[in-house]
């Protein structure tokens, strides 16, 4: 990109690279980063659940209480809900054309996601710490 005489943007604006919406490519990158995390964590989770299918309550609790499983479950919760919010955000922005409904939905999905991550993480911690 050469210094174009017709480019009326301030050079600082271009240097920051945040574009008109002020987010730049942050959304895109976070969606891809959480996607890569979820490829690994998702497969691990399916294998974990399949292994617990015929175990009883105590076996399931003991599995979640194992330190690495507890850590990976919390990682799964965070990346899963983060990725879901980013995806739903795009869907809402594409299809909801009334501004107040769009904004309300965007805020509501974030509230639900944060509450779910907190509730899920507290559950994992209660089991892992033996409460």
């Amino acid at each position, binding site marked *: 990109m050469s210094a174009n005489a017709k480019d009326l943007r301030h050079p600082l604006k271009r240097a920051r690279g945040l574009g008109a919406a002020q987010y730049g490519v942050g959304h895109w990158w976070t969606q*891809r980063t959480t996607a890569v995390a979820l490829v690994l964590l998702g497969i691990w989770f399916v294998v974990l659940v399949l292994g617990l299918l015929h175990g009883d309550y105590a076996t399931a609790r003991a599995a979640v209480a194992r330190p690495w499983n507890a850590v990976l479950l919390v990682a799964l919760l965070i990346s899963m809900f983060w990725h879901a919010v980013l995806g*739903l955000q795009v*869907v809402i922005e594409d299809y909801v054309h009334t501004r107040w409904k769009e904004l309300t939905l965007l805020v509501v999905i974030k509230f639900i996601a944060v509450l*779910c991550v907190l509730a899920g993480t507290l559950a994992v911690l209660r089991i892992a710490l033996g409460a």
Partner: protein
Amino acid sequence: MAQTQRPLSPHLQIYKWQVQMVTSILHRATGIALAVGTLIVVWGLVALAAGEDAFNQFKVCAGSPIGIILLIGWTWSFFFHLCNGVRHLVQDAGAGYTIVQFVRSSWASVIVSLLLTLIVWGYVLSAGGAA
């Protein structure tokens, strides 16, 4: 959507159906389905932390006919979104952009996700029922 007098771009029914369109639409649809499915993961973890009665209740719901139908749907949604997501990550890296590769990888997402769903549920049902 304020202005309705401007010309509209062609909509879905104008185009001949191609597998790349189907996988693109399914990626979004399965993403929305999985966003709802995240709530089941949280429910399971919270029930596991709450005690044996709550967890048994969760297992009864998950193992009911409606529960199993939903779980099969979520399993396929998960595997499709996983396979097609990996396909998109490869494309994001700049590979697989010829038309032939595009069509072939679309079919691969569909077929591999169905196979993985069959394998998982074959295992679940042959090992003596869900949950």
